[in-house]
C-alpha cells in the first residue's frame, strides 16, 4: 500500500476534476477509477459556498480525499495565500502546489515552488508539488519537507506520455518520498509504464476527461495502474539489447 504523510491509499491512480463535459460524468468516471485522491482547482470551486458547489458535492464519498490545487498562482506568496484559503474552506491541510507563471505551457516554476514548499511545510501543510522531472530539485524539496514529489511526464495536457523517463528513473532511484508522475500521461499504457519503473502513483486528468467514454477510460487506467504496479513488484526482466557472443571475450581466462 502507498502511504503519504501517514495516510494510506489502496489506489495508486490519482485524478483531476477539470475538463469533464458535466459534473455527473466526472463523478461517474472518478468512481470507476477507484481513485482515492482527487485534485480540485481552487479557481473552479466556490469555496465560499462549498456546500452547494457542483463539483464539491459530487466528491463527497468516504474513500475520496480532496487535494486542493493552486493552479493560477504565479509565485510563492500567492500560493501560500491560496493554500491557507483552501485549508480553511475545504478542511484539509493537503495541497497540490502548482506554480506556473507561464500560462501557455503551464511550466512549473522551480524557484518559487521550492520557496513555497519550505514555507507551507513549516506551517504544517502536506505539500505535493508539481515540478519538472528535475532530480536535484526533488532532493531539495525533500530537504524542505515535501510529502511527495510530482514530476511531469511531458507537458501538461499534451498526452505525450513519459518523455522525461530517463530523469524519472533517476528521481525514483534516489527519492525518500513517494514519486507521483503528474502531467502528460495520455494512455493507460503510459500509466502502466510509470508504475513499472517504480513510480509510486500517477495523476491523470485530461486523458480520462476528454475521452469519448470517460467512465470506461477511467476503468482502463485503474487496471493499467494495478498491472504496472504488479509488474514492478514482480520485478521486470531486464531487456537485453544484444545477443550473447558465442565466443565470449573472456573465455581465454579459462584456458
Amino acid at each position, binding site marked *: 500500500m502507498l502511504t503519504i504523510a501517514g495516510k494510506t491509499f489502496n489506489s495508486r491512480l490519482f485524478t483531476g476534476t477539470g475538463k469533464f*463535459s458535466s459534473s455527473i460524468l466526472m463523478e461517474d468516471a472518478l468512481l470507476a477509477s477507484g481513485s482515492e485522491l482527487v485534485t480540485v482547482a481552487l479557481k473552479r470551486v466556490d*469555496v465560499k459556498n462549498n456546500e452547494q458547489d457542483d463539483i464539491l458535492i459530487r466528491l463527497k464519498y468516504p474513500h475520496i480525499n480532496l487535494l486542493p490545487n493552486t493552479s493560477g498562482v504565479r509565485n510563492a506568496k500567492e500560493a501560500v495565500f491560496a493554500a491557507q484559503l483552501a485549508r480553511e474552506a475545504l478542511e484539509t491541510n493537503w495541497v497540490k502546489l502548482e506554480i506556473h507563471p507561464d*500560462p501557455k505551457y503551464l511550466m512549473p516554476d522551480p524557484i518559487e515552488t521550492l520557496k513555497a514548499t519550505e514555507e507551507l511545510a513549516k506551517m504544517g501543510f502536506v505539500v505535493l508539488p508539481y515540478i519538472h522531472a528535475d532530480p536535484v530539485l526533488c532532493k531539495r524539496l525533500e530537504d524542505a519537507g515535501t510529502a511527495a514529489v510530482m514530476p511531469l511526464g511531458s507537458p501538461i495536457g499534451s498526452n505525450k506520455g513519459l518523455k522525461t523517463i530517463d530523469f524519472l528513473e533517476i528521481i525514483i532511484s534516489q527519492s525518500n518520498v513517494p514519486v507521483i508522475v503528474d502531467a502528460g500521461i495520455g494512455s493507460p499504457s503510459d500509466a502502466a509504464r510509470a508504475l513499472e519503473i517504480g513510480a509510486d502513483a500517477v495523476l491523470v486528468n485530461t486523458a480520462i476527461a476528454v475521452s469519448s467514454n470517460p467512465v470506461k477510460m477511467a476503468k482502463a487506467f485503474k487496471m493499467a495502474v494495478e498491472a504496472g504496479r504488479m509488474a514492478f513488484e514482480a520485478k521486470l526482466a531486464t531487456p537485453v539489447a544484444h545477443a550473447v557472443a558465442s565466443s565470449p571475450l573472456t573465455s581465454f581466462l579459462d584456458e
Partner: protein
Amino acid sequence: MNSFNDIFETYNWDDTKASIYAKNAGDVERALASPKRTLEDFKALVSPAAASYLEQMANISQQLTLKRFGKVIQMYVPLYLSNECNNICTYCGFSYDNKVRRKTLSPMEIMQEVAVIKDMGYDHVLLVTGEANQTVHVDYFKKTLDLIRPHFAHISMEVQPLDLEDYEQLTPYGLNTVLVYQETYHEDDYKKHHPKGKKSNFQYRLETPDRLGQAGIHKMGLGVLIGLEDWRTDCFFTALHLNYLEKRYWQSKYSLSFPRLRPFSGGLEPKVEMNDRELVQLICAYRLFNEEVELSISTRESPSFRNNIIKLGVTAISAGSKTNPGGYAVEPQSLEQFEISDERSPQEIAKVIRAQGYEPVWKDWDNCLAK
C-alpha cells in the same frame, strides 16, 4: 525592442494582403499537416484557398481545443458602466457625434445592475465604457472595482486605453483581464474611422497591449472589428501581435475576439462583409495557429451560429447581454451600443451548451489567487 510598433513598421499592408491572397492549395495542405504552425501557415489558413478545407480545419480545431480546454465553455457577461464618449468612431452607437442620452452609472445603480447579473448566475463580468476621461477615469474604475470585487470571481475591463501607471494602479483592485481591440491595423483607415478624440492616436492604441504586459496583467484580449477592412489581413496582424506579445510577456494569458460590425442607430455599413463560413474559417485558423489562446464569442452573432460554433474552437461565450448602461435594471429601455442578435437568457444558452456535451463554467478564477 521597445514595442510592437517596431515590428509592425516592418510590414506593409498591401504586400501582406497580396501575400495572403497568393496562398494556394499546396500552402494550405502544408499548413494543415504541420505540427507547429507559423505565421506563413496562418496566412494560408485564412486565405481564400483554404475555403475548401473548412471541414478538415474544423476537425483539427475541435481536437486541439478539447485537448487544451476540455469539454467546457466559460460564461461571461458585459456590464456597461457608461456611454459617455469624447471619441468619434464611425461604427459605434456611443460615438461623440451620435445624439444619444449620455449616462454613467452611480455606485447605487452599479449595484442594482450587479444584483441582476448575479441572479443570472454569473461570476465573471466584463466592465465596458466609452472614453470620457473627465468623468470615467482611473478613480472611477478604482471605486467601481472596490464596489463589485466581493461579488465576482473574475473581473475584465474593456475601456479606453490607459497609461502603464494606471494599469499598475488598477491590478491591486482585482482587475484581472483587459480587452483592447485595435479595430483595424490599417493605419489610414483607422484614422478615417477615428477622426476625433484620444482614440485617433493609432500608435497609442497599438502599444496598449505592451503597457498591459509591462503592468503584469493576468490576461489581455485582442481583436479587430471585422468589416472595417479586409478581414484576412487585419486578422493576420492580430496573429502577428499575439505572437509578439506571447513571447515578450510570457506571464500573461491571451484571448481573441472577432466581432463583426453590427447595425446600430445611425450606423455605418460594413466595407467588407464576412459571411458565416468565413468566420468559422477564421476561428479554426486562430486555433490551428495557437492551441492555447482563448477564443471568445459574443451575442453579436445569431442564435443558430452560436449553437453550432460551441464545438469548433471557441472557449468563452456571453449570454443575456445588454449593451446600454443600466440595461439590466436601471434603464432597460435606453439606447444600446449595438443591436444584439442572440437574445436568449444565460440559462437557455447553458442548456444549449449542455445539450452538445459541454459544461458551462461560471467560475474559473478566484480573486484570492492574486493577493
